[in-house]
């Protein structure tokens, strides 16, 4: 009896020390643990579907807005556009839309603008506060007109993060992309920012245009936007998990 009790208590400790790394790679364990993300997503949609991210005062703005991820896209297309001050750059809106759009920077700047001073929370743990300006995403999506079945808004970027560009089109393994649901897409603080702290976006911070989806972590704030695709499924993009980092094990819903 005593022996069994000792065993019962010693066993979990031993398992923890030796078996946990193996357990984190076990597919069944992954599925169970992954249910936590779904629970968090549903919970946050339940209690805060329309909640607004806090907006700060100008005096709270971080002296330097830390550049993270890609510092400068290497691909020739973006390099050429940057060399031309993005005069030839167009934001394409495609997929499940009534009308495809191709918007220039002056067109985006002519739309009603929103300016917001918000906190950018990196998944690593740090935060920086910046003032972003740009049109809301919602009127652009309305102008394009969503077709039936639209569930996700996918953002395709110009940067190949973490290495050389691989040839695979939408399924490229290194091209940065991100996606959000329609709740966040139509949220009033979801904007396409062309300016940070009253200056056009720097190269490091995502010139010429980046997404701001203020209720999620930094890796959702896709930089170097090239194209918006309205989609019914995330499977055709990248590794199929809805983003560069989600394809690498991070949560697709990054509200936590």
């Amino acid at each position, binding site marked *: 009896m005593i022996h069994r009790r000792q065993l019962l208590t010693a066993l979990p400790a031993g398992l923890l020390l030796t078996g946990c790394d193996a357990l984190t790679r076990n597919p069944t364990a992954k599925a169970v643990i992954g249910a936590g993300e779904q629970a968090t997503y549903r919970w946050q949609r339940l209690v805060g579907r329309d909640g607004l991210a806090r907006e*700060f005062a100008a005096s709270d703005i971080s002296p330097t807005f830390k550049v993270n991820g890609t510092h400068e896209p290497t691909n020739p297309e973006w390099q050429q556009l940057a060399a031309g001050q993005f005069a030839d750059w167009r934001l394409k809106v495609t997929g499940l839309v009534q009308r495809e759009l191709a918007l220039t920077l002056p067109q985006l700047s002519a739309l009603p603008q929103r300016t917001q001073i918000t906190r950018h*929370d990196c998944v690593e743990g740090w935060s920086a506060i910046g003032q972003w300006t740009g049109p809301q995403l919602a009127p652009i999506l309305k102008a394009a007109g969503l077709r039936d079945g639209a569930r996700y808004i996918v953002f395709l970027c110009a940067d190949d993060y973490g290495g050389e560009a691989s040839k695979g089109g939408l399924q490229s393994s290194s091209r940065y992309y991100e996606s959000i649901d329609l709740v966040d897409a139509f949220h009033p603080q979801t904007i396409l920012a062309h300016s940070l702290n009253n200056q056009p976006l720097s190269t490091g911070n995502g010139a010429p245009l980046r997404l701001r989806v203020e209720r999620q972590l930094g890796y959702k704030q896709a930089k170097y936007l090239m194209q918006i695709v309205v989609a019914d499924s995330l499977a055709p993009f990248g590794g199929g998990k809805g983003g560069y980092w989600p394809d690498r094990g991070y*949560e697709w819903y990054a509200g936590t």
Partner: protein
Amino acid sequence: MATAAPTLAPLRPDSRVVLRHHWLVRLTHWLNAIAIIILLMTGLNIFGAHPRLYWGDAGSVDQREQLWLETGASPPWRNPTGWIEIAGTRFDTTGFIGVSQSPKGTTSFVAFPHWATLPSGRDLATARTWHFFFAWVIILNGLAWLLYGLFSGRLWREILPKRRQLTRAHLWTDIVEHAKLNFPKGEAALSYEVLQRFAYAGVTLVLIPTVILTGLAMSPGMDAAWPWLDALWGGRQSARSVHFIAMSGIAGFLLLHLVLVVLSGPIRQIGAMITGRMTIGGDK
């Protein structure tokens, strides 16, 4: 409330077996034990992704004004020094914090050593997924425990210090008895003494709620849903700092708890927390 514990079967004339822990207490205790250990180990892995703590709303390697804790490593790189710097004072922690040995025996530049983190190597994505799953476990489990404690009255009977225990003489006696490692026997073993109550109440009603609320305050989604969350702690980076401090308190409790269980009769204590039954009387 020794008299409330039903006698199950007499062993010797002067001893009896009592039901010491309700099944819900036992279940929540062990779920909590698993959740806390995994939360601690995944949390230390997550901390390693940005081993710096700040006060206020914002802070990064480009904004260090409110930095108060940092870990790192210094050259010579053949024989590096690991360190932790707290409020401007640097402590050499080579072998533990900043610089430690990997399981393969090579030098590793991680904040906390491989044996203390889950997964054992740098893996922010996996550590986060596990951390948030067990955050759900500790919240739901804690709510079940709290509701049971409130409605059964166990919270007042067993966890919160009793008014008569709060006199200076009583506190002093309990401190002396603990220092002498004299643990309660007989009927006295059926009710917690005052230091034990302070420890249990402090962890369950202060530290665990603190890590939960600071954890939620680090979530941009929850901050938008409940704006009071980050206001409560004075900003997201303050919440992250308090999360780390409260975690240290919980880790300290866990160590002390394990040491005292071992010193006070581990088989009897752990057995009681598994089966619910405890023999008292005789020499017990």
